[in-house]
Structures are given as C-alpha cells and as structure tokens.
C-alpha cells in the first residue's frame, strides 16, 4: 500500500491540521509515514503545501516526486492547480471551490474553475457552505478531509480517533464540531460523484 498526498492551501487555512490527523491515523494503523510541511515566512498568507506519504514499505524521500502524487487535497482552487505537476495521470483532485483572494492579481475565477474541471478525477464543491450549514464554519478544513476520506486507504474510525487526539486538548465541543464537519465532507463528496 502506498499513498502520496499533496495538501494545499494558503497560510492559516488549516492544512497542517488535516496533515496531522491523517498522520496520526496512519501511525495508529501501523503504517510508515513521512510528512513534510511548511513553517516560517510562507505561513504569513503565502501558499503553503504539505507532502504526506503513507506506505507499508520504507519511505525514502520526504518530498513526493513530480508526477507521483495519488491525491491532491486542497482548501483553495488556485492552490490546487499550483501542484498539478505533482499529480499522477489518473490521480484525484479533491478541492474546495471557494477562492481566497489576498493578492491583487488573482486570476479570473471562471477560467480558474475551468482549469480545475479539466482534471479527470475530480471532487470539487463549496466546502465553506457545507461547514457553515452544519454550524461549524471554522471547520472547512475538516470538511475537505472528510471529502478525501474514502481515498486514503485508512479506516474512517482511525481518522475520527485522529481528530480526538489532535483536538482533544481544545475541548469536547471542538472535537464534536470537527467530527461533524468530516462526516459532512464525506457526504458532500459522495453527492458530487452521484
């Protein structure tokens, strides 16, 4: 088993929490894992990405080779496209469609979404709305994790445990909101494909 996943977003959008939960779940499942993340300057509103590699074999590189990622999970559509060169031909792109505009020259949205739709294996939806509808507006990142959960080869319960471990110290209310958001994301992805 091998899953190479690129997580993408803008500094502050919570992709490192997604990475931490998948990481925790992978370790609990007895799998090997390497997860490279971005700290420092880019976290101030710049583009951030995390390379997450899970395997039952030894993993060498901390970085995924270009053309080697099975999956891109993105919380922002332009950031999803930034890492397209990493995606393997039949890989899946799972992305939020809500743009995050903190630069003056953000591209034309329509054209951007066309480029997103050009990817064959695609799950794209408004994750901000899904999060808001269940009363967990700040858990958009967990909605995206839920949307990707069927593609990780990790049992769903392990991801739930991951949420409990990572958010546990923030209190039960936050844990429940995130669990709910992940579930809503899973349903949203299923709807996208049906």
């Amino acid at each position, binding site marked *: 088993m091998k899953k190479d996943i690129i997580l993408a977003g*803008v500094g502050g959008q919570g992709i490192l929490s997604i990475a931490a939960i998948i990481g925790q779940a992978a370790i609990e499942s007895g799998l090997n894992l390497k997860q490279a993340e971005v700290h420092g300057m880019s976290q*101030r509103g710049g583009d951030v990405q995390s390379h997450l590699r899970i395997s039952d074999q030894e993993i*060498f590189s901390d970085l995924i*080779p270009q053309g080697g990622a099975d999956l891109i999970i993105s919380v922002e559509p332009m950031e999803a*496209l930034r890492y*397209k060169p990493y995606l393997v031909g039949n890989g899946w792109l799972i992305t939020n469609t809500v743009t995050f505009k903190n630069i003056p020259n953000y591209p034309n949205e329509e054209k951007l979404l066309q480029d997103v739709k050009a990817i064959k294996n695609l799950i794209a939806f408004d994750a901000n709305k899904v999060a808001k509808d269940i009363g967990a507006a700040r858990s958009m990142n967990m909605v995206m994790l839920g949307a990707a959960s069927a593609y990780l080869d990790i049992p769903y319960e392990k991801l739930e445990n991951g949420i409990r471990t990572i958010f546990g110290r923030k209190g039960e209310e936050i844990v429940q909101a995130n669990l709910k958001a992940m579930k809503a994301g899973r349903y949203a992805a299923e709807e996208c494909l049906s």
Partner: protein
Amino acid sequence: MTKLLLLGDEAIAQGALDAGLSGAYGYPGTPSTEIVEYVQRAEEAGKRNVHRTWSANEKTAMEEALGMSYAGKRVIVTMKHVGLNVAADPYMNSALTGANGGIIVAVADDPSMHSSQNEQDSRYYAKFALLPALEPSNQQEAYEMPFLAYELSEKYHLPVMMRITTRLAHSRAGVIRKESITENSIQKPENPDQFMLLPAFARKKYNHLLSIQEDLMKESENSPFNKYTDGKDKSLGIIACGLAYNYVMENYAGISPHPILKICQYPLPRKQIEKIVSECDRILVVEEGMPLVEEMLKGFLENPKIIGRLDGTLPRAGELNPKIVRKALNLPELESMPQPETVTGRPPALCVGCPHADSYKALNEAMKEFGKCHVFSDIGCYTLGYLPPYKAIDTCVDMGASISMAIGAADAGWFPAVAAIGDSTFGHSGITPLLDAVLCKANIVVIILDNDITAMTGMQYSQVNGRIEQICMGIGVEKEHIRVINPLSRHHEENVKVFKEEIAYNGVSVVIPRRPCIHVYGKKKRI
C-alpha cells in the same frame, strides 16, 4: 513499541532529552525553532527542570551552553544557519576550550532560502573549526544522533555539530525511542585551565585539536551512520550526504545499482571514500546545500571524475528534490502535467490588521517628501513591508543592521536616515548599535516596531518585552525623543506628526509604535 510522530527538529530534541540533556539554549530562527520549543513543551523537561527559555541571541545562547558544559552537564544550543554567524566567535573558540559536559550545536540550514537571507552551509563552519559534525538523513537518525554526539563530545572534550536542513527539520515521521540516560551531575573540568585561552594555553590547545583530527576521522570510518553499500555497476559511484541519500534511494526504489556511500558523520571517512573513488569510473556527489564534499574531492586541479553541483550535473544553488536528483542519475523523467497558466504567485504578506501596516502607512506619509532609499530595515515579519502596497523599507541584511547601517549613512551625510527594527530583533542585536548612535550623536530615527512578540518564527517571548524605553534611556537616548505611538488608523494623523518631528530633530530619536501582533491573543504566549 509505539512510534512518536516527530518533526526532524523534534526528534533531535527528544533524542537530546533521552540522552541526558540538562539545558536547551537558542534563539528562534526558521527552520531550527521547533527544537527548543519541543523541549519547552515536553512534560519530562518540566519535571527534570531542564533549562529551556530563549536567549537574547545565538551568541549568548552558545556561551550559556558552554557554561553549562563547563559545569559538567549535557547541553544543546540551537540556531538557524545565519545564527551561527552570530555565534561564530564562541563556536570557533569552543573548538579550543572544548567541552566538559557534552555539547551539541544544532544548526538548521535553509537551502533555497525559504525563510532566510542566504543559504550558507554550516558544515563549512564545522570543517573550519576542525570539529566533528553529524548530519541525519531521517527522523530516526535525528533522534539517535544526540546519543552518539554526547558520547563523542565527552570522549574528545569537543562540541559536536548536528546539521539539519529545512526539509528534514520540518518533516514528520514515526520515531522509536531508546532507553533514557540520566543527566550528568555537576562536575567541574578535570583540568582547571581547560577553558582558559590566554595565547600560551591556546597554542597548546590548538596543537592538541590538530593532533586528534585523525582520531575523529577514524570515528567517522567506524560510524554506524556512514554506510557503504556495494553495487554491481561501477561505471558510477554515488556519495550522498545526509538527506540527499533519500533522494537517490527514492529514485532507485531502495536498491542502487551503483556503489553508494552514505555520509552522515564528518570529518569525511577516508577509508570508504578511497574505496569508492578507486573502484568506480565516475563519482557523483549529492549533497544538500553547498558543494563541500565535492569541492574537497575534486580539488583545485579539478579531478574530472568527480561530478555534482560544480560541473552542472546538479544545480549549483538551491534545495535538492527527487526530480533534480533523478536527472543527475540519468534516469528518464517522470511524466507530469504542466501547471495551468492561470496559477499566480502568492507571496507572503502582512496579515490583515497587522500593526506594522499602520506604522508603515504613517511612516510613508511622513517620508513622502524625501523619496526612496531612506529606511534601513531588519529581519522579521516587518520585512514584508518592502512589498506593495507598503513599499516602506529599503534594506534587509542581518539582525540589527538597520540601526548600524542608518548610522553609517547618517555619518556620510545622508538625510533622513531611518531604521525600522522589531522588538525581538532589537533585543537580539539592536542595543549595541543604538549605543554607538548615542555615543556619536548620529542623526537617525530608530523605529522599534513593538508587537509584543517574536512573530515570524511563531510567537516566542521577546526578551525586551516591557523594558524597551528603559533600555533606550539607560543607553542614553534623551527621554523626550523616545516617543511611543499607537499604530491604529484612527491615530494616523498624530502618528505622522510624531514621525515628522523626530525626523526633524538632529540627533538620536526612538519611535516605538506599540500594538500587539493580532495573533498574540489567539495563541498562548510561550516561554
């Protein structure tokens, strides 16, 4: 046994803790920050009362570490690569004093300059100082190496460098722990003159350092971290250092057809190098950072057999990755889709609501009549004020240089000469140049952007917190020219006026825009 999921930085910290650490010293700097932060969070460190507060800068941190070693205890001092420039004086001299309790100097380099102003390679410092260095290739080694580092450090009475680069520093993997070692008890140096570097002593100590180089090299030859793996195809031999080893093995899916020498301990192991160079037709040197090993092997007379970054087989600058190394190994490129043209760069920027933004707006208005090239700045979030829409600053060189450069420019007759420096940077290296300014009555305005925190590296405590005015007055800045303003848009006009008044004053002025970073109250302030 359960694995701990640790960043490379955290693995070093956990390794040091388990190897009997009594103190962690350092100044925050990406990508090294998480080493001390991990010790600060570790429950066990609290129970054992391991020293774990930040120091004012890397030099004081290195010297404090040397003091703890003097008293016989095991210690780690951490910094980013450019921090070692600041700590270079004690680091170089520690090669002569040596260590009593084990010292690890953990330095995190940043090839490709993700969050840095250069990409210098700290292994050059270790070679320069004639000190051993360890360079982990993965998180498990990062955890295990402190055990060996302390052993070597106490056996040879020398500090040992642990060099790591961004990618490993900030990459997580499962780590299996070893049995812990208890801390050393206090033990004064066996030789009371060990740390005395009067020239007559220093000469002897230098000769001693030279005399044990062969022993250090033998340690590398026998190191569990340096590994020679034979391969059938001897048309090429590969020497891969630290993390670079992974990129080679990634491309060969774990089995190299060529002999490969993994180097994770320095000085270079002669025996293995001689073997691979004599057996193979060509030698590809793959190393993260600068071509240190390649240069040593190639030599001034340029042995054509050695290839790597110097002949263009690998790029001369920047971080390695699997793709770059694949090309150097002459393997077919992996198919990949192009990036759509719609994708636009998204550089980092000051956060919405950042106090620096309001400070810069007011400063810009006050400076309008003078045009560009008057504001010398420094290292921190506020360096982003160079970017539009602010375009408020003109320089960024090294910690503290804003004030010193403003002095030099003012000395040359340049007016106005303004320095913009953050509170934590001021504590790190801004106080001594301000003393210069007062002593020579330089006509400068120093803006100390006080956001209550070391923000860029992730909200660490700032050493000068709550005492900036006292420090300035103590140095001799006139009280009426130390002006505190509140950088909020509703105070814009009065802030512009303060800047204008202090620019007009012929002498040293300090303006302190004071408003906490918007993230300060979102996060619990750390130690």
